[in-house]
């Protein structure tokens, strides 16, 4: 289990357009959501309802930053959301897409 933390972080491009991978299904839970990738058979747990909201909005927003703002993430917390999104990128849950 890869736990999102400072050690494994790399720069996440908040200004790029992102999307949930096509083979990933989200299941809402009281703590946030479960995410399962049918291709890699990896299960992830999104531990924060606001992070779930960000992930849901990725497809409709021009950038991850816009999705964060639309979900009500304030500037001070952007870095921590970027780290969480980076963890999802590493596990293949989200991927970059062409800007719409």
């Amino acid at each position, binding site marked *: *289990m*890869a*736990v*999102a933390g400072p050690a494994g972080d790399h720069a996440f491009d908040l200004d790029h357009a992102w999307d949930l991978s096509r*083979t990933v*299904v989200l*299941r809402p*839970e*009281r*703590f946030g959501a*479960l995410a*399962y990738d*049918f*291709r890699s*058979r*990896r*299960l*992830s*747990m*999104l*531990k*924060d*309802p*606001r*992070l779930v909201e960000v992930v849901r909005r990725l497809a409709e927003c021009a950038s991850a930053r816009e999705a964060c703002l639309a979900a009500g993430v304030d500037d001070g*917390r952007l*870095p*921590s*959301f970027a*780290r*969480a*999104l980076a*963890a*999802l990128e*590493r*596990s293949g*849950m989200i991927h970059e897409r062409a800007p719409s």
Partner: protein
Amino acid sequence: MTAIAAPAHPAPGRTLIGYLEAGLDAPICLTWELTYACNLACTHCLSSSGRRDPHELKTSECEAVIDELQRHKVFYVNIGGGEATVRPDFWHLLDYATSHDVGVKFSTNGSRITAAIAARLAASNYVDVQISLDGADAVVNDAIRGPGSYDTALAAMRYLSDAGFRGFKVSVVATRHNIDQLDEFKAIADRFDAQLRITRLRPSGRAVDVWDQLHPTSAQQRQLYAWLLARGEEVLTGDSFFHLAGFGAGLPGLNLCGAGRVVCLIDPVGDVYACPFAIHERFRAGNLRHDGGFIHVWRESELFRQLRSPRSGGACATCFQFDACRGGCPAAKFFTGLPLDGPDPECVRGLGEQALVAREPGGRPRPSQDHSHGRSATPDSPGDARRPCDAHPLSGAPSAASAGQR
């Protein structure tokens, strides 16, 4: 379980583990034993399989279960048995599940995996395969799984590999006789571009009778822990070694007992149990045929309510290791005759061993059902109405290979 993604400052309140321990509205995944029929007779079979039960769920009933799982977004099922592939409708149910957004991981002894089947399996994203193997050579493996079962498993791996199926699982139950073969198991998995999965031997099913002789010694537990810790996420464990967390750092995974909280078992006749290693009346939540369907049982069962309520820790509550091992595996305690609120029989501090020595003689519960070849009735309930069907063509079939423990 894999990635947990969380912002650095998560919302206050319950922890993720707290939510999981309190139980989800639907399981994350579940084990579904489709049949008690098996062409093997592994000595440690967790479900005492052998002969088909005449009351096994019909095809239409299985489809209805899958429909329910789809509605509640249960991502995947671990299908086993028995040897699930001997069910004539197995391949149909596999297709039915995957076309209804329910992924399938099935355990098999490999005896029904042909080149054609392997090609078909390799073509689906939604299907994963676990080949059971309990020794890295025929001598160690076949002593548990029966003559020829090693060759059968290896042949299936070759078929899958040749068909381009990457990352299927080689599933090993850790025993006293194969702990020294861990590197060889890894080499076998690597050779076929597969992933090694090592799980704990539980004293369930027929393993009730062999656990004392087969379970790893305390020195071997430490050896196993160190080996797994060094491999990290490279080797899967099904979260089954959380009782070893007391040795040091936790192994990858959630390190909690998910029974009745995030996982469960559906048996071939529709009985719902807390976990695959707890096929006993004590851990039976209900029956999906008679108690309003699967989700109703999952949500309303009194047993599951109890399993989701905070556990005191009992005799373990004051132990400094309790936060690490959480008291271990309830099924392992139950079937070794230990109290559920005391130490795991394989407690890293040796408290389980002491408890085993001190336990009352003859106090070990027997599994509630037994479909073994050559046994006439369940030990607890001779003449039970659900007695296995002696007339089934698979009854007494020559050995080839069973799913064993998962």
